[in-house]
């Protein structure tokens, strides 16, 4: 019973982790940009949901498109205006650039929203799902389901739409795509924007679960990193598998070795995996 409950905890947590990592994986896999801004994007999504709820009573799950739209516009502008000019340089240049932008965004949020921890307190909480003694909080389950839906939609966009095929084409061969008439700069901006949409959506979904503060940005970013490396870069499935794996590993190591060692065990396994299978569990090139 205890083991089943811990497994359920791990899977639900893993679902949330996957939704933290999907956008990060997309941007890293397609643009080869390690987007340090990702954690702050998630936090900004949470604030959009928080203010939409406190000001207009919009449920955070309904505020997902709003948070996505705000983040898309911000990210599109950042990529087109600031990041595109250095896209041809080595990966460290874009890393440092997004690091700097993250400092700006994070401190802007500190000034604007303060560091106080807040949380969306639903007037009508969703309650828990009781499966014969195994309890699952419905807000987490719903957030996970919505995140999976969005991830599926992203997969659909990438594999079926014109812009999605262009994104994949740019990922596979930038020069060839440009020769075929793809506007590479615009595709970069759209991809970065889509990554931010996923971050904003995740932030909105997580606003009912985790305390909200600009200080949580680095926490989310750290998780996204581990999940991408664990699951393998550049595939939607990789982020999903990596997230679920991390959730389950953390939960069981907390049970076996005590909560203080949950992260220790997760990172130790990560190192082992990097040695025996450097591409991650589902490592593949691009979103083919």
């Amino acid at each position, binding site marked *: 019973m205890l083991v089943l*409950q811990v497994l359920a*905890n791990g899977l639900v947590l893993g679902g949330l982790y996957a939704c933290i990592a999907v956008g990060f994986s997309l941007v890293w896999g397609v643009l080869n940009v390690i987007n340090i801004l990702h954690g702050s994007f998630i936090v900004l999504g949470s604030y959009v949901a928080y203010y939409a709820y406190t000001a207009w009573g919009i449920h955070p799950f309904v505020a997902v498109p709003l948070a996505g739209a705000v983040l898309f516009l911000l990210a599109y502008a950042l990529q087109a205006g600031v990041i595109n000019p250095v896209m041809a340089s080595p990966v460290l240049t874009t890393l440092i650039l997004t690091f700097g932008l993250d400092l700006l965004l994070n401190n802007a949020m500190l000034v604007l929203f303060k*560091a106080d921890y*807040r*949380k969306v307190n639903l007037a009508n909480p969703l309650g828990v799902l009781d499966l014969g003694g195994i309890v699952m909080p419905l807000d987490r389950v719903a957030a996970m389901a919505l995140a999976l839906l969005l991830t599926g939609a992203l997969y659909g966009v990438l594999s079926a739409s014109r812009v999605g095929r262009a994104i994949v084409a740019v990922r596979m061969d930038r020069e060839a795509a440009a020769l075929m008439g793809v506007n590479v700069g615009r595709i970069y901006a759209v991809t970065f924007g889509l990554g931010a949409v996923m971050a904003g959506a995740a932030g909105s979904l997580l606003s009912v679960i985790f*305390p909200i503060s600009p200080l949580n940005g680095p926490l989310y970013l750290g998780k996204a990193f581990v999940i991408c490396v664990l699951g393998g870069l550049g595939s939607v499935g990789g982020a999903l598998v990596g997230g679920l794996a991390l959730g389950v590993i953390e939960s069981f190591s907390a049970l076996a070795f*005590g909560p*203080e060692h*949950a*992260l220790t065990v997760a990172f130790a396994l990560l190192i082992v995996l990097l040695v025996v299978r450097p591409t991650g569990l589902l490592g593949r090139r691009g979103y083919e």
Partner: protein
Amino acid sequence: MKTLLAVLAALLAFPFGPAADAADKVVRVGAPLPLTGPLSPEGLKQKRGYDLWADAANAAGGIRVGADRYKVELVYNDYQSNTPRAVQLAEKLITDDKVNFLFSPFGSGATKAASGVSEKYGIPTIAATASSEEVYNQGYKFLFGTFTPNPTLTEPLSSIVKAKVPAVKKVAILARNDLFPLAIAQEMDKSAKKRGFEVVFFEKYAIGTMDHASALTQIKAAQPQWIFATGYINDLVLIRKQMGDLGIAVPVVTMIAGPAYKEFVEATGKLAENVSSAAWWHPAVRYRGQDVFGTTESYNRAFEARHKAVPDYAEASASAAGAILQVAIERAGSVDPKKVRDALAGLDAMTFFGPVKFGPTGQIVSLQPPVFQIQDGRPVVIYPEAIKQAELRIGVK
């Protein structure tokens, strides 16, 4: 004729002379604070407390030193929630900024780290947010703290639960692996065992933990009647939420330190109901102080006028650190670090914060920290008897 001239000169000089002098005399107090980074909510609380004191002292004409009046000037340095940097900045404040006195950085860990610096330079230092005895047992002469040792929180709590809630037999303790949260959890362990409670779970969680479900699942399986969780506000908000997620309902839930802050109640809503806690001060205490703030009521009013909120214990303790320093300087009649240090060591004064008397280690020994509980969305005092506002309510769902 000569006398007349002298009198005239004196009359002419009078309006300008002392005023010019007063403007020159300044007491500089340095405060390395975590104004950015994960501890910034705490750092900003301390800053609000210090600022309120400096403004009150200056509005009253400054600190009286013999016949002179000294203005207070606070020098803040942001250590970005990075303890080694707090130590560097404490040294910089003393050597570069030439501060006369120092307020410690936030919490027991950073206070202990920085206390060696002020000791080396012989600068009297007041710690507003350090309670763990490990901070004060280093044999230092220049460190004074406004928080009583951790057992003064866990002892009354355990006594009340023992007396009022006979159903409690088993206790589960979940602690953040950090100096103060772990130290108070260990005291809780002792206080509980002393009263015959069985401690069925005692685990630590790492700083930055984003999920407590596994630990809470184990706690649920151990079937305690009292859950005692320690950490800072973000940890405790998440732990309380996840307790609800897992359907954990027990007679008593105690959390330290967080429920005293209004942010905790706002972030957890109905889940905050009946959560008990203890802190070193509460706005409901009533003292008639000899310090610049006077009574507790007038302190509360001054704080509310400035910040549109009720002060919590961290903010009040920071103001108290300033008020105590001022009393000590005025009693020493000097800003000489050694003399002020001796005045602090021998102090026996009443303040808005409570009676102030430091023990041989420099830690305050005169306070009786209140125990309180969130009832109907606000913290009410359940101990000590003299200021009790309500009885302990049983049952946390």
